[in-house]
């Protein structure tokens, strides 16, 4: 019987959203249009339209050794061309952001090849060859994984995920990379992910309302959302994993 991944336990909508996002068979809903140029500007690694700087010669010219693994693993376009490895990093507010750092790493591992995701306390970074990263980043920014107000694209100075929101419902950002335009009610990025000012603002559209966020969030939060303890199945599995790994560490033969 073919292995059918279950992605994770849980009976609540939060657990269902987690499974949905991790499942590569589920097509993420696109909720905004961002141009390729805007994605490049947001990340700030190179000027839009410029050539990709390289870290090594193209593989075709590199004279690779004969290796069966190299025959099996098809390199990414960026790896073939010798691109640099670059990153995009996100911060997700605990106030019902659609995604969160651990899930980001899980879903990127399920959905994309050649990425190196890393979860830290309040942020999540994904590294990849530059031209492939731009495709990955475009999907991460354009789809339901990102809310304009509760998710931040932040290369550095990420503090804010656990703070209260501001009066406009925006997550705190010490560098104010994005502003809430009161007239148009949209969120506009005015700085790139590391805090350098952009020549033009990038409009990410209107923030989603609380109802949408609570229906799409993957974060358990007893303050107005789904409490973790209410998901009995999830708690049971977390406890089971915790118990088994503790026992295994103590006495592996049992």
């Amino acid at each position, binding site marked *: 019987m073919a292995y059918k991944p279950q992605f994770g336990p849980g009976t609540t909508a939060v657990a269902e959203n987690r499974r949905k996002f991790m499942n590569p068979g589920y097509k993420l809903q696109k909720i905004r249009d961002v141009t390729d140029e805007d994605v490049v500007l947001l990340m700030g690694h190179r000027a839009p339209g410029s050539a990709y700087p390289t870290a090594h010669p193209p593989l075709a010219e590199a004279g690779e050794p004969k290796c069966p693994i190299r025959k099996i693993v098809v390199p990414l376009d960026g790896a073939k061309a010798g691109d640099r490895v670059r990153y995009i990093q996100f911060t997700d507010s605990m106030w019902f952001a659609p995604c969160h750092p651990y899930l980001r790493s899980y879903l990127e591992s399920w959905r994309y090849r050649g990425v190196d995701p890393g979860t830290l306390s309040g942020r999540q970074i994904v590294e990849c060859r530059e031209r492939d990263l731009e495709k990955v980043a475009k999907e991460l920014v354009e789809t339901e994984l990102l809310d304009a107000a509760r998710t931040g694209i932040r290369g550095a100075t990420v503090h804010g995920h656990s703070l*209260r929101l501001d*009066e406009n419902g925006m997550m705190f950002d010490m560098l104010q990379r994005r502003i809430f335009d009161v007239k148009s009610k949209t969120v506009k990025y005015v700085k790139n992910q*590391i805090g350098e000012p952009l020549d033009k603002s990038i409009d990410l559209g209107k923030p989603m309302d609380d109802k949408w966020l609570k229906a799409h969030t993957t974060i358990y939060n007893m303050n107005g959302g789904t409490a973790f303890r209410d998901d009995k199945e999830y708690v049971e599995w977390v406890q089971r994993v915790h118990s088994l790994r503790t026992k295994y560490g103590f006495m592996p033969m049992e």
Partner: protein
Amino acid sequence: MTEQVAYPQIRIVPARLLSPSTIERLLNGICDLGKVRRLVLNGPRLPAEVPYGPAKGIPNPHEGRKTIKVKGEDVPLQVQVGVIICELPNDQVIPEIKEICDRVFTEFSYQIQKGRFMKSIPTTTDYARYGPEMDETLLGMTDVKGKGCPIIIQGGK
């Protein structure tokens, strides 16, 4: 340790981080009472320059770091205000402050907590900066290691 008179202190905690215009309205309301001894604004810092990362050192324009006017005095905000701590002469002022909060915080909720929230004992750093004869009303009013000073609201006198 010096003996201190324990004036009542309250902490106003709004459900949202405040914009400069809201905090200006709130502070003007509170200062209009003329009954608050000391007041501290707390919140996450908004530095003038990017403090670290690849863009370290470049200017950091931020809408939250504005200079507001409180009873005619310029108050340059250095934080996005999330908590307002007030020291009061007596408990009777609390309902009056609550009334002001009700008037200002119309879009979101807030809490007023009573307790001891300001620094009460000088640290070694306080001693190094202010010396042994320090004015205790300055205690905890500003970052001891920073260059800033507390602002005295004259109330138009």
